[in-house]
């Protein structure tokens, strides 16, 4: 294996290990060796985080591993940030208001998504479970949110996502709406006019980033 391939592989492993110190050092070494930051990111660190997502879906990795992996990615990205300029948008983060809609007290999935978004550099305003729709709007306005994330775990409460979509549209707030939850699907998200849908916390990070990129 060439030096560069070995370095890229170590980057991938540092993410899989969730080792933020090692990933930072590898990022610094890449710069010192003259490796293009984009190459390091796209061929080293990002394959690692994708693999973490797969391992999570397979039930090999759990919430702590997801979070440490995301932190390791953040730590490497922080090293590259000054050299990236506007070339790459993977470090983009934003402000997200997250909650489970009124009438629904399930908060584990929402917490999972909030934690993953926070680990990827989003500023999270958690309004909790059973959150009145007005609160989503008020908080989004208050913090000038990029994203509103609404979870619903019941077939009865998912209709509130539709109400929230129309309230957001009327409010004139710029935030985009991402929905999720056990009974929710991409078709549903589309039908109600939500901007994005994610079926798990790993997917939610990708969707959130895409939405923010516009």
């Amino acid at each position, binding site marked *: 294996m060439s030096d560069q391939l070995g370095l890229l592989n170590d980057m991938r492993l540092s993410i899989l290990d*969730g080792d933020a110190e090692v990933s930072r050092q590898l990022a610094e070494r890449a710069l010192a060796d003259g490796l293009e930051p984009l190459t390091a990111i796209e061929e080293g660190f990002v394959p690692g985080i994708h693999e973490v997502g797969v391992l999570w879906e*397979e*039930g*090999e*990795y*759990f*919430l*702590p*591993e997801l*979070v*440490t992996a995301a*932190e390791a990615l953040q730590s490497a990205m922080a090293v590259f940030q000054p050299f990236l300029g506007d070339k790459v948008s993977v470090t983009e983060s934003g402000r997200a208001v997250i909650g489970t809609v*009124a*009438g629904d*007290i399930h*908060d*584990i999935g929402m*917490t*999972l998504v909030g*934690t993953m978004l926070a*680990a990827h550099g989003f500023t999270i305003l958690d309004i*909790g479970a*059973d*959150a*009145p729709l007005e609160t989503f709007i008020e908080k989004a306005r208050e913090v000038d949110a990029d994203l509103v994330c609404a979870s619903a*775990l*019941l*077939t*009865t409460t998912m209709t509130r996502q539709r109400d929230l979509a129309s309230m957001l549209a009327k409010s004139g707030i710029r935030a985009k709406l991402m929905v999720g939850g056990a009974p929710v699907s991409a078709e549903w998200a589309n039908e109600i006019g939500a901007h994005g849908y994610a079926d798990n916390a790993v997917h939610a990070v990708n969707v959130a980033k895409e939405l923010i990129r516009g």
Partner: protein
Amino acid sequence: MGTLLMQMGLETGEAPESWLFKEPEKVEQAHRDYAEAGSDIIQTNTFGATPAKLAAAGLEGQCEILNARAMELARSASGGKTLVAGNIGPTGKLFPPMGTATEDELFTEFRTQAEALASGGADLLNIETMFDLREAICAVRAANATGLVVFTSMTFDKLKRGHFTMVGDRIGSSLTALRNAGAQVVGLNCSVTPATMLSMIQEARECFDGSIIAQPNAGDPQQSPDGIEYDVDPVSFAAYLLDMVEAGADVVGGCCGSTPDFIRETRKALDNRG
């Protein structure tokens, strides 16, 4: 309990604990309904009554008074005919790397609630719906310090590789750790259907020889013209609980969606078993 209070009109955004002073008659009636349905143990309306969880619900500084009030209502409804369990749920705080909680902090949270429930006259403490073994152990230690009998259930998901909590705890090692921390009865509640929980109880019994409690949901939630309904009916629910007893559960009960009808059928089924 929560399901019944919602049927009785608990509003969106209202913490169930807020009804302890606002609608005490309804809370007491819910307890009475469960007692009359044949429960051996009823439990207080205090699932979210640790200081941190109450503060998050806008009930800051009311841990002692709300837990005392909850015990008072449950004991009055019981009239000495059932045992009364003080109910304790997760704090909502997460340990690193997910959050910033420390074991000392969570122990103090649980100790404050456990002491209030014990002072109010709880016969036992029932810790439920724990999804992180570390938090569950903090709760068990705090509950244990009251000298009361401690029941503890955790909630597991069915994944491709088996049954795990969201932080990766497995059933067998969790139950053993909870017992070693001082819980007398340990087991599973919430999240899954009775059918899935039956297979989890079978797994638990294979690797754990202590007393086991099983409290499944009444199936998956469904929309109906009358509101939320769960897709397992009371008779089928009771049959599943009997199967769990056969599989080695020592204590059975219901979680989300299990209204007094479910408990009544279960009582009947348990009493009629050969």
